[in-house]
């Protein structure tokens, strides 16, 4: 119930007969960084807009802080900071005035503007019109706006879009601090796995509007199983021999791939190969990267 900061039940959105998001059951725990992953067009932004009450779900419900969003939208939003897709700003105004325009609506203390500018590192540039900012600076201003109201929940939709590597690193560090220093729960969406892998504690993967994976990042990593690759002088004979032993073997250039093999089994294989005068050139472990696993999940939609 209220232990979840965000909980959706059967959340769906239909556009002209096509479901952009269907039957989504998100569960985001307090103090967590939740990585919301999926390829472009999978329904991430649509979901986030529904979480913020910008669009109305066709079906299903959203509870934030245990409150029904459609009934207590204003109460909920008071504790939520958000950055949806690319940053919104008033280009002719300076960063300070941009934040002031939002502050007047939030009723936050005036000193908060300086604080959030410091947090995102824009204090020096704060008096210039925002239209002259680089994309990275606009993105940081967007995050500053999201932090302005001292939120308990931060919803960031692709916050590192368009940033250079050092900018991405900066934002990543910033996001990581949030739960630790301020007790803020963070929902961050991205189409880049390593982005989420480095920050998030829990991952939800969405594909064609459906949630196909939702668990901790460790579970996801554990599923990226290892394989042993053997390069030998006569691979076909060796593979046949291994199959006789009941091992899961696949021939693939330049050698043989062994899956789900225990350490003793591998030792046995090597011993037998040596006994039968095969040349053993290389025995190496190949981890299936998280990236491949992700692509597999996103590509097939099945649970790995």
């Amino acid at each position, binding site marked *: 119930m209220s232990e979840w900061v965000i909980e959706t039940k059967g959340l769906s959105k239909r556009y002209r007969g096509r479901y952009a998001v269907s039957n989504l059951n998100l569960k985001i725990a307090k103090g967590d960084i939740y990585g919301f992953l999926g390829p472009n067009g999978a329904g991430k932004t649509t979901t986030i807009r529904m979480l913020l009450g910008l669009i109305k779900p066709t079906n299903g419900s959203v509870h934030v802080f245990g409150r029904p969003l459609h009934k207590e939208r204003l109460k909920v939003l008071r504790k939520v900071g958000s950055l949806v897709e690319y940053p*919104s*700003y008033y*280009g002719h105004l300076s960063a300070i005035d941009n934040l002031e325009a*939002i502050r007047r609506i939030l009723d936050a203390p005036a000193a908060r503007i300086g604080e959030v500018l410091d947090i995102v590192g824009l204090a020096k540039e704060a008096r210039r019109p925002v239209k002259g900012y680089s994309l990275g600076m606009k993105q940081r201003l*967007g995050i500053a706006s999201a932090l302005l109201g001292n939120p308990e929940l931060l919803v960031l939709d692709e916050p590192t879009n368009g940033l250079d590597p050092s900018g991405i690193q900066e934002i990543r560090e910033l996001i990581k601090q949030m739960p630790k220093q301020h007790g803020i729960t963070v929902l961050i969406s991205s189409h880049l796995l390593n982005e989420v892998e480095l920050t998030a504690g829990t991952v939800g993967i969405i594909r064609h509007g459906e949630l196909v994976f939702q668990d901790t990042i460790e579970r996801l990593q554990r599923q990226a199983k290892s394989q042993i690759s053997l390069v030998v002088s006569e691979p076909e004979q060796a593979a046949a021999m291994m199959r006789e032993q009941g091992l899961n073997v696949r021939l693939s250039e330049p050698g043989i791939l062994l899956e789900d093999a225990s350490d003793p089994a591998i030792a046995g294989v090597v011993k037998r190969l040596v006994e039968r005068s095969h040349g053993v050139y290389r025995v190496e472990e190949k981890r299936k990267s998280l990236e491949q696993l992700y692509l597999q999940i996103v590509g097939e939609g099945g649970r790995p």
Partner: protein
Amino acid sequence: MMLKALSADLLKIRGKGIWFLVALGPVGVIAMQALNYGLRYDYLTKQYAGRLWETLLDNILMFVPIALYLGVTLVSSLLANVEHGTNAWKQLLALPISRNAVFGAKFALSVLLLAVSCCLLAVGTIALGLLLKFGTDIPYLAILRLSFLPFLASFPALALMLWLCMTMKNQALPVTLGVMAGVVSVFSPNLSEWFPLNWPIFGYEGPRQELFAGAGLLCGALILLVGAIHFNKKDVD
């Protein structure tokens, strides 16, 4: 809550040239009459001797509806564009503020801006009359009626324009509609006085001025209500 949004909106229009536009309307209308009287001062003062102020007001009135329609259109479009520009709607509407307050604040601000125009028109009329030496027997009430009753009668147009401009990202349609309304209003006074575009002019002329201003207020409120309901339900992309 609407006041918070209004104060934020006041900040956002800074440096957008809206205040300049607000002054340009009445200054333009007055300047045209200054030119008119400047070119044929002797003829006009002889022809209309004895009712100089009345004639001046009638002359100014001819351009009030078109100026109003253009003003309504431009102010609505500029106010809406402040948010459309970088799609700031999604940021604004994700803040803890009701959509009614956002919509209401935009309407209040456009009324405020146009009311400033109306005040300038009143001041400009008096200044022009004095400059043309029409005497100090200034018909204050008539000038106030000229400046504000047509404005009240144009509320339906304002509510409609604001609604269209705020809900459509592409401003071509509402702006075209507004400019057309302005142009048509110059030629339409021959039609029935209840033709909606004629309300502003008959808000000053004729025996039933207050009726047209009242109808404008009522009809404007109705359109505003419908607009607000739609804005409330609309998905924000």
